[in-house]
């Protein structure tokens, strides 16, 4: 099953880039949490554990050929949809949203698993139904349904951030698979109508977040607080930043969630535009490497899989950074490899493992 020659084709570039980003992330967590959590295992150490665990998972995932996943696609998809549905029935409610299933040892968040599963499912679907001139509207119904079911279930929880990400990942894959121009136009029109209609289906706090995003000053101490404080943190960083562990915004705890969703604001405050551009470059390199892997993939399934995983990482970065610097509403999406959290780290590393897997096998015929 495992060929020694594979070791020679291990993608050190991707793995190195990912480890570099995660290491910077841990250093940043060290800074952002140094002023609190006086005892117990420090957050940055825990994140180190998660990185170790994630890397191990990624490496284990490279042992078996990714092609086996194609046969597992429908089963995992059905299982994951069932899990999502059961969350709505038996799930654990935390902070007003029901997202977790309590497994005793840890809490499983099926919507997180769904991100990977939908990628595998759509990759299997598109690779088995290739269309040279692009899909017609009619041909998009099946993949559309595959995507819509988990998206709706996730929105019900309600977890708008993850639902949005699932949608973005699926749409990226569909766009890449090719959609005929007339179908695309009709879909765009439908989407704009749906967005207008969807407003009325949103929960109060979700509407609040969007309203506040459009005008943060209308509630500077409530929902607008995050955005205002984050923008002040980022903006006050200037060109060179205030220096490691010197950010007043974060060290004096003006910034909420500064170790999770807003970890980047701490970085931007302390390292300035200079650091930000370097970090953005690093993330862009990871994304471009992902696209490169897709391009060189040895099968159509592998190509779609790599596109999906890259899209997942890409949209997490864009949505999180967009939110932190006030371009998008606050939806609670973590920055991959940077925000504290085991779930995000493990999901990202699973994605990374799949990319490594596809990359390693491109020379095998």
């Amino acid at each position, binding site marked *: 099953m495992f060929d020694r020659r594979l070791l020679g084709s291990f993608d050190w570039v991707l793995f190195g880039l990912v480890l570099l980003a995660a290491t910077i992330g841990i250093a940043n967590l060290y800074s952002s949490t140094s002023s609190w*959590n006086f005892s117990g295992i420090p957050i940055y150490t825990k994140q180190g554990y998660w990185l170790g665990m994630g890397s191990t998972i990624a490496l284990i995932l490279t042992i078996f050929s990714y092609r086996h996943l194609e046969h597992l696609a429908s089963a995992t998809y059905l299982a994951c949809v069932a899990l999502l549905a059961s969350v709505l029935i038996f799930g654990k409610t935390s902070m007003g949203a029901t997202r977790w299933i309590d497994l005793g040892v840890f809490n499983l968040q099926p919507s997180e698993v769904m991100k990977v599963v939908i990628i595998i499912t759509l990759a299997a679907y598109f690779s088995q139904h290739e269309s040279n001139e692009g899909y017609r509207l009619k041909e998009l119904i099946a993949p559309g349904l595959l995507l819509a079911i988990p998206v709706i279930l996730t929105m019900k929880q309600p977890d708008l951030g993850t639902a949005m990400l699932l949608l973005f990942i699926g749409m990226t894959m569909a766009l890449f698979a090719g959609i005929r121009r007339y179908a695309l136009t009709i879909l765009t029109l439908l989407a704009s109508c749906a967005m207008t209609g969807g407003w009325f289906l949103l929960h109060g706090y979700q509407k609040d977040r969007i309203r506040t995003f459009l005008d943060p000053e209308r509630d500077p101490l409530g929902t607008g607080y995050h955005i205002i404080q984050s923008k*002040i943190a980022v*903006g006050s960083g200037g060109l060179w930043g205030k220096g490691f562990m010197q950010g007043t915004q974060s060290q004096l705890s003006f910034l909420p969630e500064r170790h999770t969703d807003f970890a980047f604001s701490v970085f931007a405050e302390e390292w300035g535009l200079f650091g930000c551009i370097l970090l953005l470059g690093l*993330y862009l390199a990871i*994304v471009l490497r992902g696209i490169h892997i897709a391009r060189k993939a*040895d099968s159509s399934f592998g190509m779609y899989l790599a*596109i999906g995983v890259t899209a997942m990482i890409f949209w997490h970065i864009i949505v999180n950074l967009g939110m932190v610097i006030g371009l998008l509403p606050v939806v609670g999406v973590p920055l991959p490899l940077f925000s504290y959290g085991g779930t995000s780290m493990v999901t990202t590393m699973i994605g990374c493992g799949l990319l490594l897997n596809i990359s390693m096998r491109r020379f095998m015929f």
Partner: protein
Amino acid sequence: MALNSPQPDDLSRKRRFEWLMLAAIFFFTLLGIRLWSLQIIYGDQYQTLSQKNRTRYIPIAAPRGPIYDREGLLLVDNRPSFTVSILRQEVTDKQQLLTRLATYLNSDWQQLEADWNKRRYYPQYRPIPLKHDVARTTIENLSENSIDLPGMLIEVQPMRAYPYREAAAHIFGHIGAITERELTQQRYSDYHAGDYIGKSGIEKHLEPYLRGIAGEKLVEVDVKGKKLRQHQVRPPLPGKSIFLTLDRSLQLQTEQAFGDQSGAAVVLDVNNGDILAMVSRPAFDPALFASGISNDQWQALVNNPDHPLQAKAISGQYPPASTYKMVTALAALHEGVISPNDLIDCEGRTTVGNRSFRCWKKTGHGPTNLKKALRESCDVWFYEVSLKLGIERMSTMARNLGLGRTYDLPLDSEQSGLIPDKTWKRNRYNAPWYKGETVIAAIGQGYVLATPLQLAVMTSTIANGGTLYQPHLIKRIEEFDGKILKQYGPHILHDSELDLEDLSYVKRGMEEVVNHPRGTGKSTAIDGVIIAAKTGTAQVVRLKDDPVDGEEVDIEEIAYRHRDHALFVAYAPAKKPEIAVAIIVEHGQHGGSAAGPIAKQIFKHYFTTKADTSTGGPDV
């Protein structure tokens, strides 16, 4: 090349990849431009804002949930307490402040400085607490002179209060500051250093309910962390209210009845297993822990030979002595080895092999039947019966009545006692079982051990006709606004399937213990209610293996620690039982004379209170 692999020269695919890369670069460029705009174009503006930034969230501690008795009478609550803290930015002269504070607080300034240094890594705006629970007069004194104490801050915090001090202390348990080790545990994952948690008893086992949800206040500060103004954003949510099955006045009465004696008592409702009172003496004041116990106080508690920290009612394992005789009697009737009216001639001793086992009454009881054996606690009757019965059948009945097991109360260190049998002895000592051991087991001595709770359960099971109820302590849990969260009703563990006729003979014997001129517990009788009981005297150390007849032992001469434990189990009213009690007075000598009076007070209190409420209240 595999059939499904993409063709590298596929033009449209190549173009799609190019689009993909362009899109990625486009989005990243967009982010870069936005960052440029925030950090460079508007950078100065945001830097000014960050200098002036003045708002931040600070948590407000939530009060723990109160604990009530079965009627909703308060048992444990919180009271406001004063903490003297330091706001570092306002301190002008640290040395001077500490010396002055030391005088007011009547403590050592070096100690205060050590406390200060221990918490110096607190965020600047967060006050450092120096002394908790400072007396009101001291606080008044301090506030009058606050002008000379720049940087001192007086904070009001909820403090756990136990208005009945030592009463039911072992049930409530105590709270304390969370330790470093506890902070690393999964169950305390959302706690912070400095938080108080339940360390034992209900406080510990119902911690998730008792703990409230911390509130938040928005504090305006300048960039150096100096506090300017504050307003509450989210009020703290108090913990849930716990309603125990305890009856407050009965609990207090029972505690009081012990006086200076050590021991334990349990009062059960025989018809549902509610624990109405549970006392372990001596006790401790849980409030000592709430405000931080001093080393001296702690040492005094730990080194006290009467073990005030031990919950004797559930973790004290004593030989049940003669209170075990109901077990032997019921087993004998159940197995048919003897009839209730069969007579055994007690001559003051029974001989097994070359050993002689004495009855407590050296002159003997003469011809004795079951009723008389129970009433006058004739040991020989039980010796003889046990030889026919054997240890296995006796122990089966003991377990059937609720002995030898734990009941999973939400408390610490509940013990299972010990009901011995041959397998146990083989495993424990790798030795066979001897007949002599059966004989002493029949009167609840030797290996047999039981906790006061188990003895109360046994008595209750006999009283109610054989239903073993799960003894329970928690009646219900409510949200702070009164919404019921959980409710616990009676739970039957098993039906002992006792023959009602067998039982009636044993019960009659127990009634005569109190209501017969020669009963061993006749001094316990009260007006208006018929009590059924059994006394017991448990040997702590064997005085002499087989004392010579006629040798008198003077109680005064026996060292206190070597004196026998006094036991007493009872239920009432005899015909329609409502409550069962089990009492042990450590080194109290005789069950009837030392433990009986406590039972008497419990019954008196229970039935007079009941009469008062039924005549005073509206007729139903």
